[in-house]
């Protein structure tokens, strides 16, 4: 049996070495924009769905926060067991962190007829390791065939960043944009009809806040969307502000509603911000966080016993 195991091990080691060599040499060509989210722990996180993923660039924030964009999509990272456990693993658990939690009604929803947590079957749900570099488990589970994913022929409209931020390229024609926006309206109208806000997801949102508060300040944020989509989501979840007010009081946290500051943002598809707009929004949010952190520090200093 020893001979058998040695032979198999040698064979696999040779093959893995060749693959590892290719992956290491060509890792920058890997088309997967989410790959960088599975490599290492970070002090501070941006949490949420694709709205936050495509809108908030950590490079706009001070380096002292070590802020990382750990938002995916409403299908992969809605609030639930999977995302909660991933967040727990993802942070370094150092004090003085900041956590920006994007509130998106569709990341707090479940299907009315089939209330199934479908994220369990998506990449994050199927992943065991989220802080390994290089992450072969992620590469093999999500990027096969490897030859194709590492030598992309098709042009992607997304650019990945090491800080987790996914940049959307505005390479759609105006006609295509109109078409895509129509589809988005139909999609969100359909979701608003078929889905409902889930008590269990709200529970996990609160558990996430409670957990993260041990290591730093938690901020709830709303990434701006187009007025057309905003109207749909307001109708879908009218109690949203009441609920957020409740969270603010219960956990003594701040809510930054950027829809007020950017009521008509430039979007590609009514939901996701154009690159320039995301830069403006990220800079605005960065300044806001800095001032709030400074006021917290001031309050902390002035209220400290002398």
């Amino acid at each position, binding site marked *: *049996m020893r*001979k*058998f195991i040695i032979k*198999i091990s040698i*064979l*696999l080691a*040779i*093959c*893995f070495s*060749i*693959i590892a060599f*290719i992956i290491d040499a060509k890792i920058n060509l890997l088309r997967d924009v989410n790959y960088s989210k599975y490599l290492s722990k970070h002090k501070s996180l941006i949490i949420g769905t694709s709205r936050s993923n495509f809108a908030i660039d950590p490079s706009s924030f001070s380096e002292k926060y070590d802020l990382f964009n750990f938002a995916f999509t409403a299908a992969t990272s809605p609030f639930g067991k999977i995302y909660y456990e991933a967040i727990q693993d993802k942070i370094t658990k150092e004090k003085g962190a900041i956590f920006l939690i994007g509130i998106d009604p569709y990341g707090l929803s479940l299907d009315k007829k089939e209330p199934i947590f479908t994220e369990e079957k998506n990449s994050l749900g*199927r992943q065991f390791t989220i802080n390994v570099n290089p992450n072969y*488990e992620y590469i*093999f*589970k*999500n990027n*096969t*065939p*490897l*030859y*194709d994913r590492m030598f992309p*022929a098709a042009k992607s409209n997304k650019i990945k960043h090491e800080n987790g931020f996914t940049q959307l390229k505005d390479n759609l024609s105006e006609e295509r944009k109109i078409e895509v926006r129509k589809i988005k309206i139909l999609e969100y109208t359909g979701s608003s009809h078929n889905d409902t806000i889930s008590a269990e997801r709200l529970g996990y949102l609160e558990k996430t806040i409670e957990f993260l508060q041990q290591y730093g300040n938690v901020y709830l944020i709303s990434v701006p969307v187009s007025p057309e989509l905003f109207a749909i989501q307001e109708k879908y979840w009218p109690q949203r502000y009441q609920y957020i007010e409740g969270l603010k009081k219960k956990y003594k946290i701040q809510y930054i509603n950027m829809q007020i500051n950017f009521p008509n943002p430039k979007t590609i598809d009514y939901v996701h911000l154009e690159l320039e707009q995301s830069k403006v929004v990220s800079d605005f949010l960065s300044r806001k966080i800095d001032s709030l952190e400074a006021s917290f520090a001031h309050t902390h200093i002035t209220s400290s016993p002398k």
Partner: protein
Amino acid sequence: MLFNSLEYFLFLPLVFLLYYSLPGKYRWALLLACSYYFYMCWEVNYIFLIFTSTLIDYFSAIKIEQASSKSAKKTWMFLSIASNLGILFFFKYFNFFTDTIELSLGVFNIKTAFPDFDILLPVGISFYTFQSLSYTIDVYKGESKAERHFGYFALFVSYFPQLVAGPIEKASRLIPKLKEVNPFNYDLAVSGTKLIALGLFKKTVIADRLSPYVAMVLDHPNDYQGIPVIVASVFFAFQIYCDFSGYTDIAIGSSRLLGKNLIKNFNLPYLSASFTEFWKRWHISLSSWFRDYVYIPLGGNKVSSSRHYINLFITFLVSGLWHGANFTFIFWGAMHGALVATESLFSKFKIQINFSFLKPLKIVLVFAVVLIGWVFFRAASIDDALLILKQASHIEMQQIGIYMFDASICRVEELYLSIVFISLLMIFEIAQYRMQNIGKAISQIPFALRWGFYIAIVFTIMFVGIFEKDQFIYFQF
């Protein structure tokens, strides 16, 4: 847990190491626990279903053996058959059955509304039900002894390498193997590993590569015609072969690692020169099951000629229905039944032309007809299948080389790769057909070249293979 998943490649070595490190008397318990865990990875609740089938058949067989009268034996056997087929009927055929009744009565303007159950078909139910069923029938016929050890019997029903898609084993063959406390067998383990690699190659490099093209064309028969439809149909023939025989190779290979050889399920079926030969080479364990438990009880060939042809036809019809609750499967079964019966009829008249140069032609002809059968097998309805065949007949010469590799269907590189890998597989199979023992031939190649070949295969699987995308096609049955 799919055979082509990372989880399985952690699970299998772990089972392998634990199995050989445990004392012989505890190994069955390990395999049973691992098999139940393997099944529960799909749906935890369905473990109760397989356990119920196990309990019923375990006690039925003992009662059959203990019964003093023939009628008592019969009663217990019918109880086993009725409960097994009842479970299978409910999960697999109930909605089809009620829909068909509603449709039939609708013709006479009689409106009925049966309840429609939205149930998920338990993975592998047809396979383990048939395996378990064969056991009680064998005990009834006196061909097998009732197993008294519940653990071994439960393992026979749920043995993980062949639980979800066969090969379907007989109790008289598998239970003694499960009881064997075999030491590690180097040659068997090496051949098992090679089979696993071959199975993975077929599944991840070929079958899952063909899948998008096949789905794009055959799921939208209105949108394509001519060459792309023919290419998609040929691709489906290779997809289903590589998917199912790839699964079986991994199943047999996994079992060989545990020192237990399972029966062969495929033997180069697309190199058959007749339909009868095709069914001796395709899904051999199921064909044998239908031969032993349907065809022979019907009288087999020990009856009048006309009755013999009817027996053949009925056997294939039931086999079609086994595959799924849809008229497409019934048609597919009936078509093969008619072909095999016709062949049998011609063989009676001794109409045989045996020129060796005709054999390749016969192989191509059989493959072409099998292909038509696969169109029905793959289509959502008979109408769709007929539409696909109609669309395939609209061939325009200018399509060759242009639409055949239409980038809107699938990326051209993927198509070229598919063709290259299918060709390599066929070369390998033809070599196997001619040499009989290709494994021995490979082992005689010089060391460096042989290892180069192994490395190339494993590297191709890792670098070009598609993982975690599609389930195995036969899991739905």
